[in-house]
């Protein structure tokens, strides 16, 4: 079983559409991060959410941390071809673990067509 499950796994949409990516776990995390990874590059941090229920906005991207700190969502408004990439959630500090390692989700590959 995957600790952090992302859905959908793949998403192909037209430019201008809205989309939401989900990151779900049965474990509680002290914080959760979202990364974007492009081919041939390492993951690049987009945002960190720490407080249950927290909402953060980064231009057209809206990130939410679930009240119970077990899940998160990424919503993109009016997607553009430049948003194409692999989106990864990563949890830090799973309850009971005294650790700073990142536990990555299964990833969502987004393709936005012009």
């Amino acid at each position, binding site marked *: 079983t995957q600790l952090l499950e992302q859905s959908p796994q793949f998403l192909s949409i037209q430019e201008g559409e809205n989309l939401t990516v989900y990151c779900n776990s049965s474990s509680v995390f002290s914080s959760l991060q979202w990364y974007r990874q492009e081919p041939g590059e*390492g*993951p*690049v*941090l987009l945002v960190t959410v720490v407080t249950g229920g927290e909402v953060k906005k980064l231009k057209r991207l809206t990130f939410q941390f679930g009240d119970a700190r077990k899940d998160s969502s990424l919503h993109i408004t009016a997607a553009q071809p430049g948003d194409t990439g692999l989106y990864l959630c990563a949890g830090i500090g799973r309850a009971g673990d005294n650790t700073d390692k*990142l536990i*990555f989700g*299964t990833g969502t590959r987004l393709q936005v067509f012009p």
Partner: protein
Amino acid sequence: EPEVTQTPSHQVTQMGQEVILRCVPISNHLYFYWYRQILGQKVEFLVSFYNNEISEKSEIFDDQFSVERPDGSNFTLKIRSTKLEDSAMYFCASSGGKPQHFGDGTRLSIL
């Protein structure tokens, strides 16, 4: 902006050979990490390193793996006797606390 650099970008090695992957972390960072990503799979934690010793390692990081910070700038991952299943992208990350900054990875191909 400072960045983590990894060399080589692509390493092709015969099975059973030793391989060393190199990373230059961001200069004032104190925490160092290796992750790997097998093609089509998620990014997995291998090991974390702080104060010149391993602070945590995963089940993947067995006796064939070792890490070293030989000269205060480079942070290396060595695989002693590579196996086919070691083929993956290997990412180095460094941190000054939070968050972790990733390099662009080394693609390791074992033949």
